[in-house]
């Protein structure tokens, strides 16, 4: 079985279920996950973030190959869960409006 992620990032493969292509999916996973699961993902990704960016910066941002796209989507999930770890200390916005009722217009079909 070929690697799901580019070479040198195999250590992140246990978290490949966070490699989701849309904000709607990434937010759904953030809300549905436990804090330990989110923290484990965050702790694995944060020290690798600069290395991931340095590697992916050599690809066109909107046209990456499959493995690089997965890696980019992992990075986007780091952006999604950052607030859960750094601000709210829980998956959802504290006392916030339910994000599942929020339509991501930029991802809607016209």
């Amino acid at each position, binding site marked *: 079985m070929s690697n799901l992620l580019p070479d040198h990032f195999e250590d992140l493969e246990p978290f490949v279920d966070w490699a989701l292509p849309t904000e709607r999916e990434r937010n759904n996973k953030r809300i549905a996950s436990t804090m330990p699961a989110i923290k484990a993902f965050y702790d694995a990704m944060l020290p690798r973030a600069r290395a991931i960016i340095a590697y992916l910066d050599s690809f066109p941002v909107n046209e990456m190959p499959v493995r690089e796209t997965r890696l980019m989507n992992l990075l986007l999930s780091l952006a*999604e869960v950052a607030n859960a770890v750094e601000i709210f200390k829980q998956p959802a916005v504290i006392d916030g*409006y339910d994000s599942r009722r929020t339509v991501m217009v930029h991802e809607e079909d016209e």
Partner: protein
Amino acid sequence: MTATSGKRWSDIYPEVGTEPLAIDRLMSPDFYEFEREKIFRTCWLCVGEIIDLPEPGDFLIKDLPVCSTSILAVRGYDGAVHAFHNMCSHRGNKLAWERRGKCVGGTLTCKFHGWCYDTAGRLIAVPGQEKFFNLSLEDNGLTPVATEVWQNFIFINLSPRPRWTLREYLSGVAEDLDGFPFTRLPFAFAYRVDLKCNWKIAVDAQNEGYHAAFLHKRTIGDIFSSAQDPYVDPLDIKIYGLHQRASLPGYPPNSKPVREIANEFGKRWSMSRTDDKLGEAEPEDVRFANYESMPPGLNPTRAANWTFDIYMIFPNFWLGLSNGAYNTHQWWPMGYDRTIQEVRMHQLLPRTAGERFSWEYNKTINRDVWLEDFSTLEKTWEVLRSGAKHHFNLQDGEFMVRNFYRAVNEMADF
């Protein structure tokens, strides 16, 4: 109170008043019927953006249940934007159903019986026309609505004889923002929510900074409030007839691990507008190099700690302008107790993976902050009509809220 003069905003604009705001009538079903007629069928409404209609034949629709209609806006072959009620002359079927599209062959055809219109709204073909009784195609084109464009924004007016041209309606605002690069900042992202509350409760939430230190204490309280200025008193306020502007200060944000990485790769999307907004290398046509080159209505006081300006265009079009980006809020009443709100961001798009990461992080912060903003609205509505309270008690810095209700009452009683 203004920091410079020590005067209260209510002293500078006494017409806005200081009395508690009576709310029972404002939030009633009867008042909503007034608003539908005297506000939404009278005022100019923004229904779309011209960057969505680049070519002749491009169209968009905006459903307006508040006015019992749907609007079709088309880029004509004359280059201008024309708007019509989106309603076939035959038996009233909605003509275009897609939110956006192209008039193939320069025509739009009704799905029901094939009646065919051109981009000027003319009825050009009726299948089986000979079976009708003296049907005049010329008299049965689409019903036009007054349409004018300001900057990126397509406005319509449903009054058969609008009280104002759009330029008159936006008098003062258009001049103060002349030169702001609205059409050069692409659409970036947007969120839409369906709220169980009266539209005005949702508007109020965007029109004061008093809540920043409380509702947003975990997210952006550090950016907007400080020990010296805990309640986000505006730098400046200006009234333009029905419309108004407030210019807001800000402060450098607290550091967070992911925020530090994001700022390293794309400071331009930082929510803290004080983050080097003048200095960063940018395409010249979307950012002002210094305060003096800005339009008079952007950072009007030329304050060093300026973050962004709110322009509230009555009744339901809010703009937040910063240097190199802007966002909008719109509220569309669906009933006296239901509102669709859409918030849209316009900013340069990411070009690299690092920028894409920074952009995503800042989008998420924005979104989580708006989730905080939306959190009080339905809960307020649950109790607002209990009869337990009859007034809002509003402070001097909640000026825009008091002034908005002044405009609402003025239009409803006109």
